[in-house]
């Protein structure tokens, strides 16, 4: 029987009841008496010099309460980059200021240069249109193509940065010579040039923010769509606005998906706070979807050349990559970490390969900022590796399953230090490959292929194996590598006098189901019902300082902090129990919600101990404080390393080039699984996004920097009829060795492992169908691209 309670149970999600009843509380649902409405005026040109901003007419329009331009914020701080990267020559990256509102120049379509606050949304929109009409911007040539941006110093996104380059990073620079030598002497080298297509994260809830200012106390409150309210508060306080941290509360209520795009602080959040102070009323802003397309941080956008050196049997000797990564017009908070330490450090994959060298040049362009999107750097690394490996297998006529298997690290090699600087603690890549091959019925493929062929369809099978580093991150390590923040987390476990529990966590749930899963974990640890435990998140006035949720870190880092706080509760409970039971503390054991004197039937329930802590009549007050509440901070000892093997089968319509995903099989090792239902759901979602990247989604700017894919009419989101039922398995478990729950993280896996499996399957189908000249098709593998490749 599967467990129906605590760790390992597929507990139904408690948050579902409010979401299914229309009772969620998303930022746009929050209504504050006297609220006003902000609308932003955004650039319609990709690159331009602001001559004048036409605010005069708008300021006098009906209902208009305030108008802001870049001039109003030119003396406040900029939105900072969270990670300092040094170039290969040791020089620090170029960090242009990112203002609240554009000042002097606009640098991408959608760059906000003014804002209006009015009594009603319609009045604000009307005034914003007048400002746009009366503003004079001298259009400059747009910088869109990365190679051109690097080559042409005469046209600059930021006037002070001549070649539009942010940095030129080598990882690991000391390995470069040895890697080059390995290539020189290698019996075989496979080279592949590829594009990792730019994506718009597209959380279904658009960004929204409400600013409040309380003149009586000088306090501010920001209600906003954030994955990490404390980080947002820190950025606003320390860098952008100079509001003392203790005068600003940031609340992220129910948040409708993030996928990375709601990690970052955006200028709109600062604007609504400044406006609220100015007009002494609440100011609300809700993005329209077109604003989301134009101004949310995008993802991916790498142009990569990858080379693989091997012997004739396919044993890997070295990998080398050269990548241009687009950072867009400004540095979003983690945009410099994503193509570097979240990408280059994964470039050894799950393989034993002696030499790896990664070069990444990051480039400013007149496009929206690019930052971490589900997987963040790791999908790019996995895609490059798994595509080039497949190409090599084809060149040498080797079996792609066996090549991966013989290059895998083996279970006796852990802990294993990779040539790109990570220490993998544990894993079993053979096991997940075996499981994927079994569940995906590799043996039966040929029969299915013949059946497809009878219907005129070309069938192919694609494999990818993946690994990621999550549970971000050991602060001392990331500090050495340039991070400007720590990446620990925190939890407070408050046992109330009546024995129920409030857990305040630094994690933030925006779809992951923390309210359910965290309660399962604490219920198991304390032996009390899940229903007695409430998980509190998303409000800086209630929760301890934590860094929020992204990078599959919630259970591995925040869950560990929570576990450590529970341990402290149990330790204190033992002291109280020892006093009440007149026994030595060392003789007290805790199990099943009871403190017992070992070897006797004397015991106190958890509820009795809690009550005693708050009504301390019979209590060791001379040695022990009353109350039962503990906080723990946890800084992880290492990253965690989930890994897996994905199999995709496609049918290609030879007439039209349309690709249909027939089946998708995932075998993952996430370490211990707390709630199988939720873990599977996370993988489904990631795979859906990965299939979207592989077949459908693309963010397209024209040569003038106009976004051609700025709505759901133009940007092809995966829909229900684009994907199949998935087969998902997480039964191959090697528990993480350095956190008490043994968990690794599952949030990004699907988006990391799936794109190369899909593309490998398409290429396989074309080869089996006789189109052996096709070695690569860039994502999205659209019908026109497939047809063109087949008919080239």
């Amino acid at each position, binding site marked *: 029987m599967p467990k129906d309670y605590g760790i390992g149970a597929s507990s139904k999600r408690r948050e579902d009841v409010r979401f299914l009843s229309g009772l969620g509380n998303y930022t746009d649902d929050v209504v504050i008496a006297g609220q006003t409405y902000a609308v932003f005026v955004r650039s319609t040109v990709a690159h331009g010099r602001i001559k004048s901003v036409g605010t005069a007419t708008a300021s006098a329009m009906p209902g208009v309460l305030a108008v802001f331009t870049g001039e109003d914020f030119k003396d406040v701080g900029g939105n900072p980059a969270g990670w300092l990267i040094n170039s290969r020559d040791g020089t620090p990256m170029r960090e242009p200021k990112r203002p609240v509102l554009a000042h002097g120049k606009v640098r991408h379509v959608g760059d906000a240069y003014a804002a209006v606050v009015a009594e009603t949304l319609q009045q604000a929109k009307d005034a914003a249109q007048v400002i746009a009409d009366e503003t004079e911007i001298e259009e400059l040539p747009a910088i869109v193509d990365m190679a051109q941006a690097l080559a042409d110093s005469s046209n600059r996104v930021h006037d002070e940065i001549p070649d539009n380059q942010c940095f030129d990073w080598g990882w690991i620079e000391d390995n470069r010579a040895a890697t080059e030598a390995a290539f020189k002497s290698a019996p075989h080298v496979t080279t592949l040039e590829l594009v990792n297509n730019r994506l718009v994260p597209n959380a279904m809830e658009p960004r929204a923010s409400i600013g409040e200012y309380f003149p009586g106390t000088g306090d501010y409150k920001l209600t906003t769509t954030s994955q990490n309210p404390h980080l947002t508060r820190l950025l606003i306080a320390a860098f952008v606005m100079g509001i003392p941290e203790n005068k600003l509360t940031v609340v992220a209520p129910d948040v409708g998906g993030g996928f990375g795009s709601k990690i970052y602080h955006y200028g709109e959040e600062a604007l609504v706070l400044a406006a609220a102070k100015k007009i002494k009323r609440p100011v609300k802003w809700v993005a329209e979807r077109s604003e989301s397309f134009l101004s949310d941080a995008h993802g991916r956008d790498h142009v990569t050349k990858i080379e693989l050196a091997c012997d004739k049997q396919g044993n890997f000797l070295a990998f080398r990559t050269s990548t241009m990564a687009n950072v867009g017009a400004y540095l979003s908070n983690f945009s410099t970490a994503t193509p570097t330490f979240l990408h280059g450090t994964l470039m050894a994959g799950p393989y034993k390969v002696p030499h790896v060298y990664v070069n990444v040049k990051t480039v400013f362009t007149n496009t929206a900022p690019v930052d971490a999107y589900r997987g963040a750097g790791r999908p790019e690394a996995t895609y490059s590796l798994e595509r080039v490996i497949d190409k090599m297998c084809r060149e040498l006529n080797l079996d792609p399953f066996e090549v991966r298997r013989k290059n895998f690290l083996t279970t006796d090699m852990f802990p294993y230090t990779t040539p790109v600087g990570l220490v993998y603690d544990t894993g079993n890549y053979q096991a997940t490959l075996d499981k994927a091959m079994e569940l995906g019925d590799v043996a039966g493929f040929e029969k299915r292929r013949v059946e497809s062929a009878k219907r005129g369809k070309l069938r192919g099978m694609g494999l990818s194996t993946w690994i990621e580093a999550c549970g971000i991150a050991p602060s001392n390590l990331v500090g050495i590598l340039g991070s400007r923040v720590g990446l620990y987390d925190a939890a407070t476990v408050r046992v109330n006098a009546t024995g129920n529990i409030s857990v305040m966590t630094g994690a933030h749930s925006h779809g992951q189901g923390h309210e359910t899963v965290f309660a399962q974990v604490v219920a198991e640890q304390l032996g009390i019902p899940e229903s007695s435990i409430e998980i509190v998140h998303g409000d800086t006035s209630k929760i301890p300082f934590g860094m929020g949720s992204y990078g599959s870190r919630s259970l591995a880092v925040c869950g560990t902090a929570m576990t450590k706080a529970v341990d402290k509760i149990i330790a204190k409970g033992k002291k109280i129990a020892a006093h009440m039971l007149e026994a030595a503390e060392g003789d007290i054991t805790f199990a099943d919600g009871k403190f017992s004197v070992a070897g006797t039937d004397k015991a106190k329930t958890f509820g009795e101990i809690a009550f005693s802590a708050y009504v301390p009549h019979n209590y060791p007050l001379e040695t022990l404080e009353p109350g039962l509440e503990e906080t723990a901070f946890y800084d992880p000892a290492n990253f965690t390393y989930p890994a897996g093997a994905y199999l995709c089968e496609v049918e290609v319509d030879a007439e039209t080039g349309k690709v249909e995903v027939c089946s998708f099989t995932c075998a993952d090792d996430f370490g211990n699984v707390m709630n199988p239902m939720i873990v599977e759901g996370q993988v489904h979602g990631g795979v859906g996004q990965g299939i979207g990247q592989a077949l459908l989604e693309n963010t397209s700017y024209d040569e003038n920097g106009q976004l051609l894919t700025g709505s759901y009419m133009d940007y092809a989101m995966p829909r229900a009829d684009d994907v199949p039922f998935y087969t998902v398995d997480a039964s191959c478990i090697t528990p993480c060795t350095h956190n008490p729950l043994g968990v690794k993280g599952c949030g990004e896996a*699907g988006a990391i492992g799936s794109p190369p499996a899909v593309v490998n399957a398409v290429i396989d189908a074309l080869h089996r169908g006789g189109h052996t000249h096709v070695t690569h098709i860039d994502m999205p593998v659209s019908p026109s691209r497939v047809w063109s490749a087949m008919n080239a």
Partner: protein
Amino acid sequence: MTKVTMTVNGKAVSGEVEGRTLLSAFLREGLGMTGTHIGCDTSQCGACVVHVDGKAVKSCTMFALDAAGSSVKTIEGMANADGSLGVIQQAFQDHHGLQCGFCTPGMVMSSAALLAENPKPTEAEVRHYLEGNICRCTGYHNIVKAVLAASGQDVSSVAAE
């Protein structure tokens, strides 16, 4: 401003609206019923689906005045009389057919419309019908499974939820 009157979830309601006020805005701002969500403003995402006189409608694509005199049903009206989750809502919870919850009201309303006209849809019919509702979290697996389950079909052969 014009007075508009309609029935929402069985109750007569009225309010003052402009000609350009959308039904979605009237529900959310006029009536304070924020279960209906706005995800795209362009009638693409389906988060705002409600029923108007029994038909699924994207409420961001209809003026409030056009719904005058109509009977409107929203996610807030989908529970059983005793307040417990209705069959489709319960199937979404049982099969983990939602994550962030933002697309969910529209998904439930579209699913209800589907099952009203096609009580035992095939997997392909469910996927086709829900093509106008975008979800970014679930990869659709558990949504499709939940709708099939809500129709009374056995979903035990579908891979784990």
